[in-house]
């Protein structure tokens, strides 16, 4: 399975090549990947259904306890299944939606990479692995939201989504570190068994806060909900996939996964149920103010995510069952509805529901699919959404703390969602046909297949919810209610949840009837809305930019000697502190200097002094060269040929670079005052003196066991090489070298970018009327 997921990234990278071979059919070909993965998952079903927890062991960095082990239980299975099945459908759909689009290969690369990241996220057993996949989903979704990168709004929305989710990701990383410390394991399978230990631990509160921040930002919980509707700038297949079925559910998945480990405390219950309920109501309330069909659906997704969080907060066995049903129902109907929204947009050329009407005559199948999916969204029988809503109301009624408030919020959300469902399903398809920018036709089969299948599943699971009993049982076992007896039914008789459903139906229809008036009335709240959390985000970003500007002006003033003074003083401070207070200075070594060594040292000193006092730049460079070559000589004397060669080559290249730079510099001039030069002298002497002390101190006193002995002894047997330096670089310490390679690459890009921008600024100046020159 790990190979399949890692290989999936390779397939993603190959999309342009596949596109070269298969042309417009590429999405169909690539859909085989998630389809075969879901077939494999289906094969695992008997084991998962029997309550077995599959651990696919795979080492990654055993020295740091990082594994690539996958954990497949009911919870992971359900999510993986949703990701692969809806993923395959979305790929098929996008082939039609983006037919002939210039950037189709790029789209396929990123969405497949996203799919694999998401799959890795829900299957990972190790916290570090989970986090890596978590961040990968943030990055790939950034690329997907900003897919239309020529559109400023899309770029802005992508950046906003990235900042919010990656900011939360940082908190999550801290939370995971604390979690691993508190639970003494990086493995989720272990941690979920150590709930007692974790909840008693002193770090419980801070780690809970950090983990919740990560999950809430990812799953667009209040007050971080604003990025999700903005992310609708993405192409519709992306919205259907990321912003309904998968990525935004990552946060909810994490909460569910950690529920057995962290759940059940007062902090958990109250935070999750209140934030969830608030998110529900906010999402539903904001939804009905919009006429853009994608925004309507996006806000109703916020509402659904709130519901899921709230149910996890309530945490009773009934609530967990409701959680699973609601999750499944939402993925099915929301995926379908987003795809329908894409069809409408694709066929009519507008996303505004008030601009459409009577489409049921030209698009009967789309209308039917939309109707079924919207019934599920509205929570009406006989759809799966109804089962979920009943269970949700039943769970809310069982809450102890804050019951009236949560019930009120949940009820408001329910009836407003019903209105949203009515708007999406009725407005475009019924009423008088309207003129739209494009003349609508029934959508092609490839676009209808996905939503039709999802809607059919909503309907059949709704009619026979008993089919889901084993799946729900296996899933809640993973969330912390093992051995739950699950018996789902469509009809529970007349009870309080049913009455609440009825009341919300009536109120919802009322809201739908008066939607236009309601919207006009709500528009008056605009000034209040402008002060919402999104304004806070904008202010925060503006603040960060201005702080960055301020500190850049402070620190990066363009004088290299100031940078050096700051850097060296910090070095002297830290090293000096450690040397003096943590370490007793003792000097005990045999000083035996040969004549030729003294000569080389003298050359070095002479070179350094000459470089400081020379009045010509070329002479100063030459003096520095003397120093460099003397250092190389030292390496030769102490038999380090690799270092000597490197030093010589670096000196040579320095000369080349200096030749290129020198003549661009202004005439040699003394820019600093005598006092400044005295200061520089003091800093330089201090640094030099300290390093000398450090070296002398290292040479004397009792020695730590020498690492080099190990390297010398094992270079040949383990590294198959006689050159120890090289074996260390490419084998023993290869990870460090890899890091340095990236640093080098970044430095090169930095130089290139700076000079390139300089050249562009220069060109721009040349386009402008030339400044007066006197030298010609």
């Amino acid at each position: 399975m790990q190979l399949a997921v890692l290989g999936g990234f390779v397939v993603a990278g190959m999309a342009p090549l596949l596109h070269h071979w298969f042309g417009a059919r590429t999405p169909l070909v690539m859909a085989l990947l998630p389809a075969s993965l879901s077939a494999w998952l289906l094969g695992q079903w008997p084991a998962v259904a029997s309550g077995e927890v599959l651990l696919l062991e795979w080492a990654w960095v055993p020295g740091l306890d990082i594994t690539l082990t996958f954990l497949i239980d009911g919870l992971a299975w359900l999510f993986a299944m949703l990701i692969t099945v809806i993923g395959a459908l979305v790929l098929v759909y996008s082939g039609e939606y983006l037919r002939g689009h210039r950037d189709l290969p790029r789209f396929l690369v990123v969405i497949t990479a996203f799919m694999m990241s998401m799959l890795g996220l829900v299957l990972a057993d190790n916290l570090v692995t989970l986090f890596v996949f978590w961040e990968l989903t943030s990055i790939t979704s950034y690329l997907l939201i900003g897919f239309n990168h020529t559109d400023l709004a899309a770029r802005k929305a992508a950046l906003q989504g990235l900042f919010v989710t990656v900011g939360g990701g940082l908190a999550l990383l801290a939370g995971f570190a604390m979690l691993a410390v508190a639970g003494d394991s990086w493995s989720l399978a272990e941690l979920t068994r150590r709930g007692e230990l974790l909840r008693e631990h002193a770090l419980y509160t801070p780690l809970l806060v950090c983990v919740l921040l990560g999950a809430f930002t990812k799953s667009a919980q209040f007050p971080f909900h604003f990025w999700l509707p903005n992310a609708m700038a993405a192409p519709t297949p992306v919205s259907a996939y990321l912003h309904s079925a998968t990525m935004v559910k990552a946060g909810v998945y994490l909460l569910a996964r950690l529920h057995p480990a962290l759940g059940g405390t007062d902090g958990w219950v109250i935070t999750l149920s209140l934030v969830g309920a608030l998110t529900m109501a906010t999402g539903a309330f904001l939804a009905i103010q919009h006429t853009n069909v994608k925004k309507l659906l996006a806000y109703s997704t916020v509402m659904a995510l709130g519901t899921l969080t709230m149910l996890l907060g309530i945490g009773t066995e009934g609530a967990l069952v409701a959680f699973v049903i609601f999750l499944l129902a939402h993925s099915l109907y929301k995926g379908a509805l987003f795809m329908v929204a894409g069809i409408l947009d694709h066929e009519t050329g507008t996303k505004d529901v008030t601009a459409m009407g009577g489409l049921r005559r030209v698009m009967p199948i789309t209308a039917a699919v939309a109707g079924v999916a919207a019934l599920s969204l509205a929570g009406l029988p006989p759809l799966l959404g109804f089962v979920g809503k009943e269970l949700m109301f039943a769970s809310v009624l069982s809450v102890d703390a804050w019951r009236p408030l949560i019930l009120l919020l949940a009820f408001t959300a329910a009836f407003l969602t019903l209105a949203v469902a009515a708007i999406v399903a009725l407005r475009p398809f019924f009423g008088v046909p309207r003129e739209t920018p494009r003349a609508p036709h029934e959508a092609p089969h490839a676009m209808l297949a996905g939503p039709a299948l999802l809607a059919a599943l909503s309907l059949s699971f709704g009619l026979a919810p008993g089919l889901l009993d084993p799946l729900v049982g296996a899933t809640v076992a993973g969330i912390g209610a093992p051995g739950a007896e699950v018996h789902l039914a469509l009809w529970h008789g007349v009870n309080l949840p049913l009455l609440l459903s009825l009341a919300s139906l009536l109120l919802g229809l009322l809201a739908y009837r008066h939607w236009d008036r309601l919207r006009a009335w709500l528009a008056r709240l605009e000034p209040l809305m402008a002060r919402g959390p999104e304004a806070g985000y904008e202010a925060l970003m503006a603040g960060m930019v201005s702080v960055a500007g301020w500190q850049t002006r402070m620190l990066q003033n363009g004088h290299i000697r100031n940078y050096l003074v700051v850097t060296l003083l910090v070095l002297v401070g830290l090293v000096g502190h450690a040397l003096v207070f943590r370490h007793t200075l003792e000097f005990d070594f045999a000083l035996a200097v040969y004549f030729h060594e003294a000569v080389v040292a003298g050359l070095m000193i002479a070179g350094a002094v000459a470089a400081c006092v020379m009045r010509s730049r070329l002479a100063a460079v030459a003096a520095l060269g003397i120093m460099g070559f003397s250092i190389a000589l030292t390496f030769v004397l102490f038999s380090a040929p690799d270092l000597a060669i490197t030093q010589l080559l670096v000196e040579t290249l320095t000369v080349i670079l200096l030749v290129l730079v020198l003549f661009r510099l202004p005439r040699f001039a003394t820019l600093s005052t005598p006092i400044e030069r005295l200061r520089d002298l003091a800093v330089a002497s201090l640094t030099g003196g300290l390093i000398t002390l450090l070296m002398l101190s290292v040479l004397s006193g009792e020695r730590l066991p020498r690492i080099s002995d190990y390297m010398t002894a094992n270079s040949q047997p383990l590294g198959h090489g006689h050159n120890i330096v090289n074996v260390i670089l490419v084998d023993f310490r290869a990870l460090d070298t890899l890091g340095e390679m990236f640093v080098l690459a970044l430095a090169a890009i930095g130089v290139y970018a700076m000079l390139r921008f300089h050249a562009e600024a220069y060109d721009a100046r040349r386009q402008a009327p030339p400044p007066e020159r006197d030298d010609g």
Partner: protein
Amino acid sequence: MVRSGTLILNAAARLLLPLQLLFSLFLLLRGHDEPGGGFIAGLVAAGAFALYLFARGRRALSEMLKVSPRDLVGMGLLLGVLATLPAWWVGEPFFTAQWWTIPVIDFKASTPLIFDIGVYLVVVGSVLTAITALVKTDDQEDDEH
């Protein structure tokens, strides 16, 4: 400011370049047992290209290289990352060195060698990126005089 060099430099660069590149390859391949290795070899190659650049100009260099130095950096990083993967295949920890002997020529192929080639490309690419970028801005200013 960097103009095509004198006749001697010009001829020397043309003759020296293949020799220097061969030498850098030699350093690269023997690096695991004798002084050398990807970093040093990369510096030698970068020096060779710099000489060619000084003798014949930026355009001649980029025509000869065919790829942009920045792409060399990217390829090097890719090789460096790829060298970490074979260990996974045989179920060993990430980045464990793998060795294969190619029978006929009795050559030790290994992931450290692939990794070292990656280092080589990154070094050549980075140095050339910096140098050509400096030369590029010079050329533009030259046009004006």
